[in-house]
């Protein structure tokens, strides 16, 4: 039956709907560039969601743990073999995502007899200055969104990921208005946490439209942090060390949060 073109389109549409429903409860992840690097942040998951891929590349993902694992492993293998055969400087996030991950995810998505990858991923690569930072969001169908400037949007120094489109757009709107690329770590941390709260509130109350009130964000944040932990990692801009990825513990971040 799939041989008929319109059946195929229908099958793809069903599959998209199914995957979107599966990803919808996925808790947001915010990645923000700041003066000394890039901060990745999410709150309170039992499962680790932020990962080191290579010296200057990190990844955050939501979706099925098995699929995330396969994609994560593939990304690390590709980056590591490239870094080994050539050099760490030749490992590029742009090439990794555009030439390897995206085509494979797209074909898995469109082969309607096989299983698609149930995952949405956010990658970042730290540059020498904030305007060289690269953020890429990769969808289950291989679609790529970048932080780069296009005719429709200005260059952004952040990227976010969430379960629903509405949640993601609210987070993006918030960061667009609140976040500056030369912010200090402390400021970036608080913006990321606010962005997470906004995204999370939207997931919990899907009907709400527009940005929530400042007081509501703070209240939500406090409630969530009372029972859950912060998961965070940075890619440091400091070039004295090859490996820029460092995960941060919940305890070292708590004192920097503005109540």
């Amino acid at each position, binding site marked *: 039956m799939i041989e008929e073109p319109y059946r195929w389109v229908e099958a793809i549409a069903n599959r998209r709907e199914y995957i979107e429903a599966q990803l919808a409860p996925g808790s947001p992840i915010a990645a923000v560039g700041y003066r000394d690097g890039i901060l990745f942040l999410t709150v309170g998951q039992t499962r680790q969601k932020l*990962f080191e891929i290579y010296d200057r590349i990190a990844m955050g993902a939501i979706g099925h743990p098995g699929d995330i694992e396969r994609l994560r492993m593939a990304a690390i293998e590709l980056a590591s073999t490239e870094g080994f055969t050539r050099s760490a400087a030749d490992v590029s996030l742009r090439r990794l995502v555009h030439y390897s991950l995206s085509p494979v995810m797209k*074909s898995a998505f469109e082969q309607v007899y096989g299983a698609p990858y149930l995952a949405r991923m956010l990658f970042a690569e730290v540059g020498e200055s904030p305007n060289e930072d690269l953020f890429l969001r990769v969808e289950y169908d291989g679609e790529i969104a970048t932080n780069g400037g296009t005719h429709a949007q200005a260059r952004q120094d952040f990227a976010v990921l969430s379960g629903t489109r509405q949640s993601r757009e609210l987070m993006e709107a918030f960061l667009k208005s609140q976040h500056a690329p030369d912010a200090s770590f402390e400021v970036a941390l608080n913006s990321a946490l606010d962005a997470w709260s906004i995204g999370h509130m939207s997931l919990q109350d899907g009907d709400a439209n527009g940005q929530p009130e400042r007081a509501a964000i703070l209240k939500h944040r406090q409630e969530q942090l009372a029972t859950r932990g912060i998961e965070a990692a940075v890619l440091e801009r400091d070039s004295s060390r090859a490996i820029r990825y460092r995960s941060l513990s919940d305890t070292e971040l708590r004192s920097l949060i503005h109540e």
Partner: protein
Amino acid sequence: MERSSVAFDQNLSGAADFPALLRRKGLLASAVIPPMPQAGTPQKTWQPTEATTILAFKFSGGVLVAGDRRATAGNTVVYDRADKVLEIDRHSIMAIAGVPATAWEMARVLEHSFQFFRRTQLQEMSVDGKVRALSKLLRDNFGLVMQGVGVVVPIFATYDSHPKPEARLYFYDAMGAQFEAADYAATGSGSPAVRGILYYENNWGRKPLHKLSEEEAVSVALRALDTAAESDTSTGGVDRGGKIYPIIKIVSREGITTLPESKIAAVFKETVA
């Protein structure tokens, strides 16, 4: 429908093993099995050719690893600024005696293996695991060694935080056997002289090696390398004219420090020259 072979290897068995991944992708030579000797053919005897001197010992501040700078091919000095003391990760050093091409590749494989393990398995490889990883690389290389090329005899120094924080020092033979050194280790053509000096210092010197301060340790290392260079043409020692000093690195709880040349020069001037 098959997925792109470029990106996805679905074989997850041994996913943490970087050398195995490189071999699957054809990026690392397979282990060579030594050829069986044929009856009646003259046996080629294997000549050890680790022309260099590397030494390491534990002192009060961790482990000191030192190596001369000379690289030779037969009677010829090829290079007088070779770096044979290589940092593998934040707490591990591999110092090499032997064929540079093989040794540097081994160091590269090892460095990537540790990082690959950490990234994929989300935990640091244990010290025992790291020591074994090098042993396995040597073992895989032994076929080439038997054919007369590519011998490597390294020293591995690292700092272990589990179960108790302590410096650890290992030396290997060309087949990959690993030995943990209690106090010191030396390898390369100049090592007999160095081993004599370190044994003497440790037993009858002013202090046992593990009690030496950093400056005293540097002094012992420089004297030992200079002694080795006195009779071994393959060891550079300290080039007094060219002002080329050995590479000295220290592994401690805080990580690895490379001693600046000025510091080595000062100790050399005061206690050796």
